[in-house]
C-alpha cells in the first residue's frame, strides 16, 4: 500500500520540518476527509491482502467504524461518512474529526505485516557465508 513519500527526507531535516509542518497541516485539513468524519487511515485502499490482514488484526472495539444510516428515528445513529457523502453535506463543526483525533490506528499494523513479509522474502533469498 505504500506510495513514494518524501516524509522521511523532510523529518530528518529539522529546519525543513519546521517549515513544512504548517503547510502539511493546512493541506490535510483542506483535503476535507475530517469534515465528513474520516481519519487518514480510513482512506487506505483495503483491496489488498496486507490491508485485509491488518483489518482482521485490529482490536475488536476499533474494528468497526459507525456505519448506521442516519435517521432521527434510529437511536444512537449518526450521520456517517457514507451518508454525508451521498447527501453532499458536512458534519457540524463539533462532530468533525479534530486533528488530535486523526491518529494512525491501522498503519502501524500494516507496517508490521510489511516488515514480516519483507523478512520472509529476505530469508528465502538468504546466502550463508562462513
Amino acid at each position, binding site marked *: 500500500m505504500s506510495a513514494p513519500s518524501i516524509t522521511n527526507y523532510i523529518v530528518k531535516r529539522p529546519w525543513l520540518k519546521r517549515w513544512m509542518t504548517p503547510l502539511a497541516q493546512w493541506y490535510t485539513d483542506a483535503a476535507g476527509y475530517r469534515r465528513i468524519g474520516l481519519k487518514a487511515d480510513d482512506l487506505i485502499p483495503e483491496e489488498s491482502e496486507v490491508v485485509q490482514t491488518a483489518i*482482521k*488484526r485490529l*482490536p475488536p472495539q476499533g474494528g468497526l467504524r459507525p456505519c448506521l444510516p442516519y435517521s432521527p428515528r434510529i437511536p444512537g445513529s449518526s450521520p456517517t461518512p457514507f451518508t454525508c457523502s451521498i447527501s453532499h453535506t458536512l458534519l457540524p463543526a463539533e462532530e468533525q474529526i479534530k486533528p488530535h483525533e486523526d491518529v494512525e490506528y491501522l498503519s502501524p499494523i500494516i507496517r508490521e505485516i510489511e516488515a*514480516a513479509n519483507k*523478512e*520472509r522474502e529476505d*530469508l528465502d533469498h*538468504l546466502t*550463508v557465508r562462513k
Partner: protein
Amino acid sequence: MATAANPTFQYDVSETAGVKVANREVNGATGTLALVAKAGSRYQPFPGFSDALEKFAFKSTAKRSALRITREVELLGGEISSTHSRENVVLRTKFLANDLPYFTELLAEVASQTKFTDHELHEVVSDLLKYQQQAVYSNPEAVAIDAAHGVAFHRGLGSPITPSQSTPYEKYLSGDALAQFAQDAYAKSNVALVATGPNSAEVSKWVGQFFAGLSTGGAASQYKVQPTAASKYFGGEQRIPSKAGNAVVIAFPGSSAFGTAGYKAEASVLAALLGGESSIKYTPGFSLLSKATEGFSQLTVSTKNISYSDAGLFTITLSGAAGQVGTASKNVVDALKKAAAGEVSSEDIKKATALAKFRALESVQTLETGLEATGSGLVHGSKPYQIGEIAQAIEGVSEQQVKEVAKSFLSGKATLVSVGDVHQLPYAEDLGLSA
C-alpha cells in the same frame, strides 16, 4: 558425579543464576537441552493455558520473529519441539554439540521474551490447539484416560490435559493473559534445565550468561501458576458415549514418582504382572491379563502406573470392539482378584519384578522420558533419579506386598470410565467393583 558403577546415568545437579541445572556428560556429536517448567494442565489458572503456552514456544520474541527462529534452526541442523503433560511444559532442543550456546540463548529468549501477540494467538496457536483437540478426542483411549484422571482427582491432576471441543476455553485466552501466565510459569524458581551432551560442563557457563534475565515471578494476578493443593483420590464412574471407538479404563490410586513420599515399588511390579502387552513378539507373554484375554482377537489391554509428584494412577486400559471390551473387563477384574488372593506363581512375580525394573531404568536412560522425569523431579523438589536406589526398591518387593496392593485396590473405591458404545460396556457393579 559419574561413578565407575554407572558412568552415564547420573545427572550432575547445580544451580546457576538462580536456575536449577542438571547435566549428564554423554560422549557423542550431538547434545540436548530441555527446559522443564512446572506449568502443566494441573497448574494452569484456566483451561487451555498450558496448551497455549506450549504452542507459543518458539514464536516471535522481542528479538526475533518466529520465522527467523525456524530458519536459523534449519541452518544449524537442530530440532526444536515443545510438549506438555499434566505437570510440566517441556521445551526441547537437540543440536550438534558445538551449537550449545545458540540453543541456550534461544531457550532463554523463548522463556523470557516471547511477545504473545494476539494475532499469533488467533492465526496460529488457536488453530494448532484445535488440531490437538481433534487428535486427542478422536482417540477413545486418550479420552478414557483423561476422564479417569478427572474422576479420580477432580481438580488439579484431574483437569483435562487438553480442553475438549465443547469446553468454552476461548474466552479465557488472550495474549496478555498468556504473557502474565508465562512470566510466572518461566520464573527462575519454577523451571529446571536438563542438558546432555559431550560438553555439558559448559552448560552452566552459558546458562549463567543467558538465563540471568529470566523473570523472578509475575505480579499478583488471576493468571498466576496455580498453587499446589495436595492431590486427593476420589474415584467413581463415568460413561461417555462416543463414535470414535471403545475403551474402558479401570483405575486405582497408584504410586507417585520415585523419590516422593507416595512411591510404592510394588505398584509398578503389579503393573508388570497384570501387563497385557507382551514385550516379545509372537507370544502373549507371561502377564496375567494377556492370558485372561487370550481368546479376544479385537482387543488390546495394557496396564500402567502413571506417576506424578504427589500421587499416581494405576490404570488398566482395554480398547477394541465393544462386545469384547465388555466381556474382557470381567476377566480383567477376575485376574486382579487372583493376584489379590495370591494365586500367582512366584516365578511370574520374579518375571514381573525384572520387567518393572527394566522399565523404570529404561525410562530414565531414554532421552525422551528421562529429560522430563529429571526436570520434573528438580522443579517439584523431590530427589533426582538415582539408578541404584530405583533398582534396589523394585528388587526388594515381596510377593506379599504385591498381594497386599492388589487387595487394597479391590477393597477401596475404584475408578471406571467407559467410552464408546456405552450400551454394550459394563457398569462397575457388573464387574464387582465399588465405584
